[in-house]
């Protein structure tokens, strides 16, 4: 059994090694793109069952964003929705025999965390301005600047490690039990992995929303105050 901490390239494109998480991500991307195009072509005012489920998911994402950020969810819908959907599908890839979830590898989780970190900074600067965003590190006092900077890094790091640890451990445990016991023994653990994967996808998405919301909250307050009564 290969260690999940080690990535072996499946093939090379020039000097670039292509590993399994990348390939699986491409497959997920292709599947999501195909489904999106099909659904987009079949969107009607009288929704089908599939469209109704998709609208329910999109509505739930919008509702969560609106509750956390307290503003229009449209600017954040693409990022948060994609994170939720991708992480959920990636976590559930373990159901397919021979496929390891991309999120069970640190590179994928780091990419997700990195995107969230950059998005948090970008949304914060857009909402508060560059100076306003930098000033937010001095809140409540300038003494907190180092701590806030460290927090900015550590919370992203914890986001990455949390997802990586939960998914990787599930895969690791299932692999160990599968090697020690029979074929059907890991099934309860796999079912548990489904629940864990869904919960981790939700946690990752909601924490990303919270980080973005914290970055833009003062800007949103200022925008709300600027609105005429």
């Amino acid at each position: 059994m290969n260690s999940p901490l080690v990535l072996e390239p499946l093939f090379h494109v020039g000097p670039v090694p292509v590993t399994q998480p990348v390939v699986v991500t491409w497959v997920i991307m292709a599947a999501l793109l195909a489904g999106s195009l099909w659904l987009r072509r079949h969107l009607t005012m009288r929704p089908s069952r599939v469209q109704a489920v998709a609208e329910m998911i999109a509505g739930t994402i919008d509702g969560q964003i609106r509750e956390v950020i307290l503003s229009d969810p449209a600017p954040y819908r693409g990022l948060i929705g994609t994170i939720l959907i991708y992480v959920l599908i990636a976590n559930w890839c373990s159901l397919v025999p021979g496929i390891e979830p991309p999120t069970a590898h640190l590179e994928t989780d780091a990419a997700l965390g990195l995107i969230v970190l950059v998005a948090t900074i970008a949304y914060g600067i857009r909402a508060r301005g560059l100076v306003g965003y930098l000033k937010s590190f001095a809140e409540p006092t300038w003494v907190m600047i180092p701590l806030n900077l460290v927090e900015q890094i550590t919370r992203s790091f914890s986001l990455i490690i949390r997802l990586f640890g939960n998914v990787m451990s599930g895969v690791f445990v299932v692999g160990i039990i599968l090697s020690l016991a029979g074929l059907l023994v890991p099934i309860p653990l796999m079912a548990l992995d489904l629940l864990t994967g869904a919960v981790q996808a939700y946690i990752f998405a909601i924490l990303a929303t919270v980080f973005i919301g914290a970055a833009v909250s003062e800007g949103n307050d200022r925008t709300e105050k600027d609105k005429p009564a």
Partner: protein
Amino acid sequence: MTIDWWTLGLQTINLLVLVALLGHFLLKPLAAIVAARQAEAQRLLDEAASARDQAQSESKALDAERDKLAAEKAATLAAAEAEAQEQRKALLDGARAEADTARAEAEAKAKGLLAEADSEIGLRARLLAADITARLLARAPGLTRAEAWLPGLVEALGALPDATRARIAQGPITLTFARTPDEATRQTCRQTLETALGQTLDLTFAEDPTLIAGLELSSADAIVRNNLRADLDHIATREDHDERG
């Protein structure tokens, strides 16, 4: 533990592309269709509210029109009733006037007929009385003699005022008999009258069978009757007066 930076970079690019793809091809269209449905639902609700308002407005207009028609109907009925009352009154007045006229005409006609009948009856009665009297006188010839009626005539002259009697004596006097008198009767009558009036008279004699029996003295100033015809006429006049009284 090592990190595959190529994988990290590729996954970052993959995820960024996925964010763009899902945002553009899935989440944005879904949000748009939901918003469109909400807008359509809002539009339908607005249209329904508008239709409801319009229906209520039309209902109120219909109610007002109905009230107006009811008022017009009541006014028309009242006018028709008033006109009918006027026509009825006019017809009644006309009928009443016509009835009054007819009744007055009938009463006048009846009175005329009654008067004619009375006159006819009176005439017949007088004729009958004259006939009866004539028959009686035929059975009692003494009553037809002028001398029998002469005292009554003298008594009537005596009842006249002196001035009247004097004027009678001055003028020509005609003494009418029911039958032609003989000379002795004429002399008796002349002497008696001259005695009663106290002077010689310019007396002429005449005959009128309608007197039936008796005498009639006429002058320019007065007529003194003492005959059956005068008595019968007097009786008839008195009866007429009694009937009318």
